[in-house]
């Protein structure tokens, strides 16, 4: 009933506005007439009675206004009035409006941009149903310092039957050769259990996926392909299902096509853009019929927990399972290795260190928005003092305090919404450009968009900022001293002491926050610079790397590259041909592990367990080292320095004794006080021969730019063999023509091999810095913006101060003060603001900077040099910002200044 009454009142208000007005008018008139009738009856003349009745009734206009206030929906009228008035006010001061709107556009636009990235990645990292149930399974051998070592097939079966998971699927990312088409191509392949898609809860757009319960040995002969591969290689053929293609000479039948927006939960862009999915039971040819427990050949696995099970609860059940297995198979799990299975939220494994970068950016952009709000609040306070006369007059004419506050808030919200809209508009226009800045390694890069959640966020930020910067000026109306304000003849600025103080506080806050941002940017810059200038230990310039790959047929008997000797003939022939290409001075072959900074972790090159002759090591306890398999030319081509011994030569063939070269870090780790040369190691448990160490090379940052001390062992490709291959070329290369020329040469040796991923090595090195560069650019941009805003803030406060003190300065000058002294006085004021802000900022920065420790390289979070430089820069900027208004003060003409009061 209430609602109905309200609605009908609302309707009456808006639909029958004039009728309501007329009725109100008539009702009051009838009241007066009725009263006059009574008075007439008491003996007054009609005219006199009517006049008396009107006087008794009192202010008719006020009563009407109060009645209107009681009507439903009246606030909408007021809002419209306020808005109309606000628009008029803002149009009257276009300069002021433009500055405020642009400042807010900057703040809200930047925040929204970062939020759109956060929304796509951090907030929605896994676009699968019930993603909270998804985990990655990580095996650690903590006792020997080995992490993420992979699992064996029996362990996978144990997990599958443990009752903890709905599904468990190993995931094995691989490249593969697509053959039987006009041109052999490379496809990224994922080998997984048949229930992988059921695990993720996704459906194909065409056909079907694998029958989940299939546990027959070996690979299935079916494959699911990506939408991209379907369109690109098969021309979107509608009859794609049941078509066949060859991968590594094996025949597969296509049974399904995944939708274009499906991405695997991988850790790198390559792993997220799989083109072919093949299923296997992970036993039976080409794998072992009875895989050993200790043969950790499944690189990693993902799983879906049983519904209702939390990760900690599942973890404790997994721990119990591990303990039981260790007891049951004591021989396979020596106690000192401390085998553990870790359940990691799949989200974390996909995000990796992106979370940290984005959190840092979000904080940085939050600070920028905050500074923008402070700046606008400052401007509004300054204008508030100009408008105090207007407010005083409106108060004197009967406007209520609440009404004026509401009016000012409306005005400020309007400003902020205009700013937000401008920011969003700019974001739409600059979207493509901005997305180019985002590093490719970011998960769900393609999903970044201005969604309705992002729009809602922008709206929310606008309202919050509008209220937060508008509340102080709006409330200052309440403290308005009417008499005082009205007495101020014509001159706008009254600048109460309180206002000046709050403006100073705002500027100091602003300055402190910008200093925090500058220090963050400085630390990132310093790290970046150090990394850029860290000696690499190899020379990536003028080097091109091109990948190729030999097949792994499911039937080993048809493999024409089964032995190192068979492969060697191919390597020699390709190198001989490459050597004759224009511009090529040197060429070398290696496996994928030798490609600097270019291979993913958990890939085909897990660190090797190594056994050292004469040392008691149980088979599973072996230390892990990274292996690179290279041809002898590799070291000279990469310009790596030989410290001792020799590198490989033509005599190190597959018939000769196996030899290896190690880096200094490995020599120091395993033979700290003796000469490593001549020592013997075994690079696998199954190896029958010992490998002799023949040389030591200087450390190079080939595994990680940050860590130069990764132990490395180099073995001879002609002895070890490898199928994931990289061709290295050095010389005066024509980067556009060389890849095709190399493809031609490789395929004239073997037309079934794909040639792909040609890349200048210097680009690969530079790409390894992408995420850092992204963080640096964005934080740097924000820091400069913040500094600019803070400078504007100081400029504003000092200009205001100079205006306010024109009279005083005039007197001083008239009394003989030096203009220099005036300048100094004002500069000192600016410096005081800057120093106070800097002190606060330094404390904040010291408290906060250790949060970014892991984003830094070679620089401590409290790096005195960075702090010092930033401090000097910001104070110089503050002095510059103070100089302009200060100089204006010295130009005050005493005569004019004194007269103007």
């Amino acid at each position, binding site marked *: *009933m209430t609602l109905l*009454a309200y609605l009908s*009142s609302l309707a009456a208000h808006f639909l029958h506005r004039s009728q309501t007005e007329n009725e109100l008018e008539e009702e009051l008139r*009838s009241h007066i007439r*009725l009263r006059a009738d009574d008075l007439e009856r008491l003996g007054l003349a009609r005219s006199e009675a009517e006049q008396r009745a009107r006087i008794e009734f*009192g202010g008719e206009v006020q009563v009407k206004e109060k009645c209107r206030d*009681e*009507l439903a929906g009246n606030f909408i009228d007021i809002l419209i009035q306020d808005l109309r008035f606000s628009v008029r006010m803002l149009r009257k001061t276009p300069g002021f409006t433009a500055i405020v709107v642009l400042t807010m556009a900057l703040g809200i636009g930047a925040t929204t941009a970062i939020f759109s990235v956060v929304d796509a990645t951090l907030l929605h990292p896994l676009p699968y149903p019930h993603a909270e149930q998804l985990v990655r399974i990580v095996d650690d051998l903590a006792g020997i310092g080995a992490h993420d070592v992979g699992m064996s097939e029996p362990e996978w079966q144990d997990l599958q039957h443990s009752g903890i998971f709905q599904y468990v699927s190993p995931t094995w990312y691989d490249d593969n050769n697509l053959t039987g088409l006009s041109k052999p191509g490379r496809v990224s392949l994922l080998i997984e259990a048949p229930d992988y898609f059921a695990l993720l809860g996704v459906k194909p757009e065409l056909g079907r996926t694998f029958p989940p319960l299939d546990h027959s040995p070996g690979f299935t002969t079916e494959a699911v392909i990506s939408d991209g591969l379907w369109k690109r290689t098969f021309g979107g053929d509608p009859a794609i299902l049941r078509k066949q293609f060859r991968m590594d000479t094996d025949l597969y039948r296509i049974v399904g096509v995944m939708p274009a927006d499906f991405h695997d939960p991988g850790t790198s862009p390559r792993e997220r853009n799989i083109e072919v999915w093949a299923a296997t039971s992970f036993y039976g040819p080409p794998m072992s019929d009875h895989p050993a427990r200790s043969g950790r050949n499944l690189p990693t696995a993902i799983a879906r927990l049983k519904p209702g099970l939390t990760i900690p609860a599942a973890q404790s059940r997994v721990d119990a399972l591990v303990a039981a297995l260790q007891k049951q198979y004591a021989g396979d799990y020596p106690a000192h290795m401390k085998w553990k299975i870790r359940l990691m939220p799949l989200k974390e494994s996909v995000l990796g260190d992106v979370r940290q970068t984005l959190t840092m950016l979000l904080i940085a952009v939050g600070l920028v928005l905050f500074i923008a709000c402070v700046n606008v609040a400052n401007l509004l306070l300054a204008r508030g003092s100009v408008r105090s006369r207007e407010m005083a007059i409106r108060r004197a004419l009967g406007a209520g305090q609440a009404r004026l506050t509401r009016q000012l808030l409306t005005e400020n919200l309007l400003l902020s919404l205009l700013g937000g809209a401008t920011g969003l508009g700019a974001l739409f226009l600059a979207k493509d450009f901005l997305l180019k800045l985002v590093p490719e390694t970011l998960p769900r890069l393609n999903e970044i968009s201005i969604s309705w959640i992002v729009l809602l966020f922008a709206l929310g930020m606008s309202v919050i900022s509008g209220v937060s910067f508008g509340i102080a000026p709006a409330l200052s109306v309440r403290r308005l001293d009417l008499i005082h304000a009205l007495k101020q003849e014509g001159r706008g600025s009254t600048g109460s002491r309180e206002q000046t103080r709050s403006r100073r506080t705002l500027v100091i806050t602003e300055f402190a926050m910008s200093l925090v941002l500058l220090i963050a940017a400085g630390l990132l810059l310093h790290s970046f610079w150090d990394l850029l200038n860290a000696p690499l230990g190899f020379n990536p310039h003028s080097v091109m790397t091109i990948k190729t790959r030999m097949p792994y047929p499911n039937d080993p008997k048809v493999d024409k590259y089964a032995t190192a000797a068979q492969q060697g003939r191919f390597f020699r022939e390709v190198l001989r041909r490459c050597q004759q290409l224009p511009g090529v001075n040197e060429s070398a072959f290696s496996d994928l592990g030798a490609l600097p900074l270019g291979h993913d972790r958990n890939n085909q090159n897990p660190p090797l367990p190594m056994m050292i002759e004469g040392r008691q090591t149980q088979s599973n306890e072996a230390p892990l080292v990274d292996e690179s398999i290279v041809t002898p030319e590799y070291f000279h081509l990469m310009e790596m320095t030989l410290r001792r011994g020799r590198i490989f030569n033509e005599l190190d063939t597959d018939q000769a004794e196996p030899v290896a070269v190690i880096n200094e870090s490995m020599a120091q780790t395993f033979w700290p006080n003796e000469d490593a040369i001549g020592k013997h190691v075994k690079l696998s448990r199954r190896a029958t021969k010992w490998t002799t160490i023949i040389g030591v090379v200087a450390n190079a940052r080939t595994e990680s730019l940050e860590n130069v001390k990764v132990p490395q062992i180099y073995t001879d490709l002609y002895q070890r063999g490898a199928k994931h291959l990289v061709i290295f070329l050095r010389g005066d290369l024509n980067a556009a023509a060389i890849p095709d020329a190399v493809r031609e040469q490789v395929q004239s040796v073997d037309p079934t091999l794909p040639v792909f991923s040609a890349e200048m090595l210097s680009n690969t090195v530079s790409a390894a810095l992408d995420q850092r560069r992204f963080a640096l650019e964005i934080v740097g941009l924000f820091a400069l913006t913040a500094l600019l805003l803070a400078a504007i803030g100081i400029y504003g406060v000092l200009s205001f101060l100079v205006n306010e003190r024109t009279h005083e300065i005039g007197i001083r000058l008239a009394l003989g003060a030096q203009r220099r002294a005036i300048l100094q006085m004002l500069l000192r004021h600016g410096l005081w603001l800057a120093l106070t802000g800097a002190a606060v900022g330094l404390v904040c920065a010291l408290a906060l900077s250790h949060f970014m420790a892991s984003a830094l390289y070679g620089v401590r979070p409290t790096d005195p040099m960075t702090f010092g430089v930033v401090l000097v820069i910001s104070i110089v900027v503050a002095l510059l910002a103070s100089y302009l208004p200060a100089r204006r003060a010295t130009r005050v003409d005493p005569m004019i200044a004194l007269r103007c009061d």
Partner: protein
Amino acid sequence: MDYEAELLPGTLDLLILKAVSLGPLHGYGVLLRIGQISGRALLIQQGALYPALFRLVRQGLLKASWDKSDNNRRAKYYELTAKGRRRLREETDGWNRLAKAIATALAARPQEI
């Protein structure tokens, strides 16, 4: 129109409901009725009456319609709705309880403590 006592805040709505409950009235009639039933003891500011009437209509406690008055003037008549009647009962009870409590409190003597 020389009523004596000023109204306690919040009692105007109650008085209007009471006045109208005795039969439909126009605004001026409400004024007269309140004077009459309070023994001319309560002072009502004419300016406050109409906003209060508008408020009660909006709350759905009163409904209004135009009609002819006794002396043939057109006037807007107010009457109680069912909800208004219920509200009047509740408010009257509340008021009586309050008045009784205050009266008891004010009548307290030292020896009773």
